[in-house]
């Protein structure tokens, strides 16, 4: 056991942990006025540094820390998305965070810790490391959700998320213990051999898996474990909501993939049924419920539920193609979500942020650039070609068709038709409704740059989809090379 090698394998995580701790110290010793600026810049830099470390890390699958930790192409792909999302969220939230007076230097540090938790999740190779990573992530998220302590709704959001999260953690742990009890091991490698070797799947193991999946379904906000999402998204400060919608979703979905396609590959017939049910429920309910929303953050909450449903289709397919489709979908989703939230963060009237859909009225005339970007994001989420969102859905549905899940694909397409209603409603409000009180003009160069980058990515994705598709399929193939 060479512990130095272990440290090298987990270098990006280690780097982030150390810098985060350093930042905590630095934050304390900096005067209150400057601390946030300093720490948030340092946080973004260290996140980008971690991206560099991930990118230049050794490729190939390596295990570390007594096989508790795994680093492979799949984990690297997801980690890059996560780190990028975290960095962008800190950047776009900058002004809003100051405005609502939550500019504590701890905010970026908590975001980093949450990101570290997610990275541990996707690198988990054992039920225990899975749980530890998950809790690390969740705890940081509970705190940031309640960060605006002067706002009743923010505190409420944090509390709700905490209580329900604890419940889901309980279920997950219960599932883990059942699995341990029936399989005799917590290691993914061990579980895989246990599952593959079993002549018939014991009901106990299956029940354990169901509990485990329920715990994860809570994290990705799949119906019926989604109830917290709208309230938390609405209550949490908007920059935090952006983070919620982006990174944890991706991490939990990746963990979902890691578990189902890894140790429980041999039980695919069983878990596929749950995944398909969750997927259908999520897509349909999200599409229907979003229609009657008036708050754009709630709307995004339902939208994220729906997107989770679509991603689960790929999982339901249970094939390599399906996994590739999920990875593509997640990457595109992140870009759309961050772009959309950047636009939402720009919605201010007389300095105060507004978040009703009706407040967007007339945006097409008053702020043509933002409106055009938001239009792109909405079209892309609705899946209108040739925007990136269309391809995301396309690969997912193709995977479902290949796996002969025709009814699932059809339901997916139908619900995305219904779903396009509420995306297009935003476009309609922006361009065809009469101007309400004009919103403030956009301030901040960073946010404008990020919005335009996201919009361009969405718009021009079709020129060279292979860039993403190739890396996604390489990442996915890792899970299937055995």
């Amino acid at each position, binding site marked *: 056991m060479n512990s130095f090698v272990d440290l090298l394998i987990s270098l990006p995580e280690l780097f982030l942990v150390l810098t985060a701790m350093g930042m905590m110290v630095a934050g304390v010793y900096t005067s209150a006025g400057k601390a946030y600026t300093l720490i948030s810049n340092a946080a973004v830099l260290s996140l980008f540094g971690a991206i560099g470390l991930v990118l230049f890390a050794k490729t190939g699958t390596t295990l570390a820390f*007594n096989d*508790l930790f795994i680093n492979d192409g799949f984990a690297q792909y997801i980690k890059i998305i996560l780190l990028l999302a975290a960095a962008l969220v800190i950047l776009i939230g900058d002004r809003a965070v100051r405005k609502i007076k939550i500019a504590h230097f701890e905010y970026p540090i908590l975001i980093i*810790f949450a990101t570290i938790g997610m990275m541990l999740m996707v690198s988990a190779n054992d039920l225990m490391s899975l749980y530890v990573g998950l809790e*690390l992530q969740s705890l940081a998220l*509970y*705190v940031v959700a*309640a960060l605006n302590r002067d706002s009743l709704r923010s505190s409420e959001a944090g509390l709700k998320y905490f209580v329900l999260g604890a419940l889901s953690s309980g279920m997950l742990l219960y599932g883990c213990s059942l699995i341990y009890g029936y399989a005799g091991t917590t290691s993914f490698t061990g579980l895989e051999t246990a599952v593959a070797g079993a002549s018939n799947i014991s009901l106990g193991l299956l029940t354990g898996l169901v509990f485990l999946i329920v715990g994860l379904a809570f994290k990705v906000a799949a119906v019926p474990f989604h109830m917290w999402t709208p309230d938390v998204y609405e209550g949490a400060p908007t920059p935090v909501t952006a983070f919620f919608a982006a990174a944890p979703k991706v991490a939990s979905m990746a963990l979902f993939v890691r578990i189902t396609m890894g140790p429980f590959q041999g039980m695919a017939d069983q878990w596929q049924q749950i995944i398909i049910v969750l997927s259908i429920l999520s897509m349909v309910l999200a599409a229907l419920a979003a229609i009657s929303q008036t708050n754009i953050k709630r709307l995004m909450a339902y939208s994220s539920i729906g997107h989770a449903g679509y991603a689960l289709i790929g999982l339901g397919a249970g094939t390599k193609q399906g996994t590739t489709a999920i990875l593509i979908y997640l990457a595109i989703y992140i870009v759309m979500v961050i772009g959309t939230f950047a636009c939402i963060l720009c919605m201010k009237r007389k300095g105060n942020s507004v978040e009703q859909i009706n407040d967007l009225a007339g945006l097409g005339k008053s702020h043509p650039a933002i409106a055009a970007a938001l239009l792109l994001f909405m079209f892309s989420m609705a899946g209108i070609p040739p925007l990136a969102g269309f391809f995301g859905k396309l690969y997912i549905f193709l995977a479902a068709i290949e796996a002969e899940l025709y009814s699932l694909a059809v339901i997916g397409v139908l619900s995305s038709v219904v779903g396009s209603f509420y995306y297009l409603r935003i476009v309609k409000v922006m361009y065809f409704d009469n101007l309400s009180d004009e919103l403030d003009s956009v301030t901040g160069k960073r946010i404008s740059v990020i919005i335009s980058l996201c919009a361009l990515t969405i718009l021009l994705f079709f020129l060279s989809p292979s860039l993403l598709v190739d890396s996604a399929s390489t990442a996915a193939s890792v899970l299937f090379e055995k």
Partner: protein
Amino acid sequence: MMVQAIAFYVFAGVTIASAAMVIGSRNPVHSVLFLILAFFNSAGLFVLMGAEFLAMTLVIVYVGAVAVLFLFVVMMLDINFVKLRQGFLQYLPIGGLIGLVLIVELLMVVSGWVVSPAGLKTAAINSQAIDGVSNTLALGRLIYTEYVYLFQASGLILLIAMLGAIVLTLRQREGVKRQRITDQLDRKPEDSVEIIDVKTGSGV
């Protein structure tokens, strides 16, 4: 063996009974006390299994710190628990039904228990008692070698918990006078004392 068995059933029975009382009793202080009782009995169960370190930790950490903290909170915050419970009966039937279904299902699951041979094997390897090594030492060896990763990650979780508690509760109020030692030490006579020539007969 007989004594052990009796002790097990006593501890287990009391644990379950007091757990039920935690959620059943009307007085929240009683609930916390029942919780402490449950912890003690669980510690007893650990001792029966030969895990004396875990038993001690349970007593020290949970009883000594957590439960006492609970007790303080319950007594300090004057929460009207009766009001909180009002909806309880309303949801009891359906909640009870769901609980019942879950219990029945879990029983069915457990009734089909077959300990996997592989599991038995690994358990046998791991639980071999090593002569002359105490429970604490063995745990320590494991935690700081094989499971150092989990140990450190748990440490991170605790760090976040601390950080979160500070962020969410620490307030720097404006206008509060506070002692700053450095400021006091840095003071120079020029800053605080001014010598003014006062003409005789007139005020300052």
